[in-house]
Structures are given as structure tokens and as C-alpha cells.
């Protein structure tokens, strides 16, 4: 039905991350930080502001910026 769909920022970003070695490292960093974050909060849903810290990786590595 919905043919010209919004691919979704997160969905495309995930594929970009998966598509390169640098992206892989960033993904690993995000994953590790997220797991630590979730475990430390003992089940509490991570606060939105935590996202900013976790996802700063792409800008640092340049993998996200053109």
C-alpha cells in the first residue's frame, strides 16, 4: 500500500553504520554504551537526554557528516 515510504532516519542510519568499518566501530560504541546505560538504570527506560551522549560518535568519526 504505502509505496513511496519514509525510509526513516534511524533505519537508513543503521544501514549506513553497518556498511563500513568505521560505521561498525561506531555501532559497537553505541551498543556498548547503551547496554551499560540500560543496565546501570536497572530496567528504567533511558532518558532522552542520554541519546545525545551516546550518539555523539558519528560526528566525531566523521562517518555521518558529508
Amino acid at each position: 500500500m504505502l509505496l513511496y515510504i519514509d525510509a526513516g532516519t534511524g533505519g537508513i542510519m543503521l544501514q549506513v553504520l553497518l556498511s563500513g568499518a568505521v560505521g561498525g566501530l561506531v555501532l559497537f560504541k553505541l551498543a556498548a554504551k547503551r547496554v551499560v546505560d540500560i543496565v546501570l538504570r536497572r530496567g528504567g527506560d533511558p532518558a532522552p537526554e542520554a541519546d545525545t551522549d551516546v550518539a555523539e560518535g558519528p560526528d566525531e568519526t566523521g562517518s555521518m557528516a558529508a
Partner: protein
Amino acid sequence: MAAPALLPASEPPIIEPGSFRDPAGGVVLQGGRVFRYFSGTAGTEFLRLLDAPWFGELIRAGGVVESWPLARAQAPALYALAPEITAVVEHPRIPFVSYAYEWPFQMLRAAALHQLEVTSRALANGHMVKDATPYNVQFTGTRPVFLDAGSFERHTAGEGWRAYAQFCRMFLNPLYLQAYGGIAFQPWLRSSLEGIDTDTVRGLLPLRAKLRWAVFMDVVLQSVLNRRFAKNERALRSLANRTIPDDVVRGMLARMTRTVERTRRGRGSSAWVDYEQTKAHYSAEADAYKEAYVRRTMERDRPGTVLDLGCNTGQFSLIAAGLADHVVAVDSDEASVDALFLRARASHPNILPLVMDLTNPSPDQGWAQAERRGFAQRAEADLALCLALIHHVAISGNVPFGRFVDWLASVARTAIVEFVPKSDPMVERLLFTRKDVYAGYTQKHFEAALAGRFTIVERSALPAGGRVLYTVGRL
């Protein structure tokens, strides 16, 4: 492929109300038949695709709906719908159209795996399926078939899997919600036709689910990336120019397939899934009598389509499936319908099991309230089975007999209806926790209600317990 006959000129074509979003084509109904038109280059592309061996193989295996091309002279009224139409094909009719919010867990899982298989096969042959929605998959009985022939397009290398986020919203997130959160997805999908967004699922799943690698990737990480970058214009611009290798897409499709295969429905709690084995209120004799009654009536009347309303795990659906072309089996207990799907898939593939509360059936909804049709609009059966159902509708649902009978007459030509008296242990159980305000719940009132819409063809009391079976025909 069968050569289609000429269309009768007197029948006006009607655009299928759920098919209007794609500028490259759409579905048209004419004279009880189903057609698809293609505009511009999409027409020539699709006719070329029909000649491709891999696509023919998919069609022959029943994975994609059959398409029979029609020349201009065979369908002038369809080609005349718009000047840009370059191709028209006919599809076979699906016996009963159903929607993802009516499917139990295992059906959505089967549809998800089917979508992934079709997408993977397309990618392996230089094509892509441009979307990922269960509204493009229908079930013929228990078999999924991909319907939207217009969804295939030539793959552009490096473009990635643009339908990934939609696949998550429409298939994966609902499955995760049930599997790891124990939350039924049907009400969510019914109220949100675009699926369940990743942020919502992230908030609903427990910690132990989020620690699963697949859930972490597809829910937590996707949600984090969405929130972090959705308003970052620099990142969004860079995304537009990014190339995503096809190997990544193949890897994602393979990973997603493994993930969905491993997803299991949590056992959950259902008071009804063991009903067929544990019912103590029927004697073996009464149960056998009821089965024989249904079998005998069906052998005599030979209905083509049967609705089994309140099917539970399908004791009578299975009998009906052996004597009818198609059975649509409906129950509000998702665990029971899920069990019936697995049972039917193994032995009776002409049963379509659906989850629905008959006191609140699927409504007309979507754009202009016509995109997804309500249950009553789609249901027109030769026979409805309403066995051990009326007390649930009339007492649990507070629906008066007359209203139930009116509704029944709108969905079926004939019916076998079981009346369950107040003295029955199952009715007594319902009344334990309710004030008995059901003075009109008597056999006499029930027969009077039936007589308003149906002729009573046969009346037969079960050997013990006071239950009565009626065979009725619409007036």
C-alpha cells in the same frame, strides 16, 4: 497462464478503495474479477518482469499472485481509465480478504517471513520490493501470497533497503510486542494502520527483551538514531548521498529472517486454548451428536464458504474444511486462533483463522473509511456455524437476540446455531459474576428472534443438558 476472456462491456470498472496511493498503478474490480493497471514505464517493466524465469518460478510456487496480461482489445474500459495506462493484468480472486489486525501471532510471523523471502529473491535477481507491509500479503487459507505485483522495481545498487523501517513498524515490532512483552498486537495494528513505531515498542518492552541483540539493533538502536538524527539537517543531507552496499542489505534480510524465525509466541494465559480437550459440560455422546449433525447438514447442503463464528481451536472448522471450499474461522481468543492456524496449516490449508471479537468486529477504516473494509462488508457465507456462541454474545456481550440474528443474516445465507439454556454449566459460570438481568434469555425468545430473519429448517436437541441445534435459512 490461462488466457483471460473478454470483459463484458456492461460492467463498469470500480477502483478498489484501498488502492490509490501508488501513481504507478492500482487495482480495479469489474464484474467480480480483479485487475491491476500500470502507468507509464511501470507497465512495460512489469510485462518484462513477468517473462523473467525467477519471477515465473515465484508465481508457480504460489509465492506471488498470478498475473494474466490483457491486451487493449480485451479490456478497453480498463485501458480507458487513464491515458497513461500501459498495461493491464488480471489476478485471481482471493477467497476472503483479511488484515494483519485480524491475524494471530503465527500468521503475522508467516507473512513476515514471506515478505522477506520475496524481497530476498527479488534482490538476488536485480529487483527490489519497494515497500514492506502486511497489506500486500494475503492468505488463501493458511498460505501467504504476495499480492502487490506493482511493488517490484529494478534495484538501484547502493540504495539500501528503504522499506526496512516500515518492515519494523508493520511486522517486527508487533511480533516483538507479543513475543517479549506479552502484549497483543492486534488492537495496536487495528488503531494504527501504519504499524507500531519503534519508540513506542522501545517504551513497552522489558529490559530483558532489550538486551537481546536483535531487539537492541532493531528497536533500541533504531529509536536512538531516530531521536538523535531526525532533526540533524547535516546528517540527513549526508544520508541522501550515502551508498549502502548490496551486501549490507542482503545481510540485513538474512539477519531479519533468522530473527523472525526465532521469534516465538509467549505462552500467555488463555482460558480457552485447552477448551476442546477439557470441556466437561458435554458428554462424549453429545459432542459426537453435534459433530454428526454438522457433518450431515453440510453433506446435504454443500456450502462453498463457511464462517465458523466462535471457532475456538477449530473442532468444527476442521470438519467444515473437509466439506466446503473455504472456511473462515473467527474467535476473540488469540491463543486459540493461533493454535488453529498451526493445526490447519498441517492438514486443512483451506481454513483462514482470524482473531476478532464478534461484539466489536473490524470496522470500515483508513482513508475515507473505505481503505480497509469492515468484516460485515467482506463476509458473505453460504453457511455460518454458531456453536456454543450465543451465550457469550447475549450474556457476556449484552447483545440482544434480535440484534445478533439481524447481524447473522447480514453475513450468511444459512446457519447452524446452538442455543445454550440458562441451566447449562457454562451459562451458570457466566452468571456467577453478573447480576442476572437476562430475563429474555429463553429458548422461546431465541426462536422468535430467529423467525424474524430466518426460516427454521431443522431443530434438534442434544442428547443431554438442554442445548438445541437449529439449522436456519435466510428469509
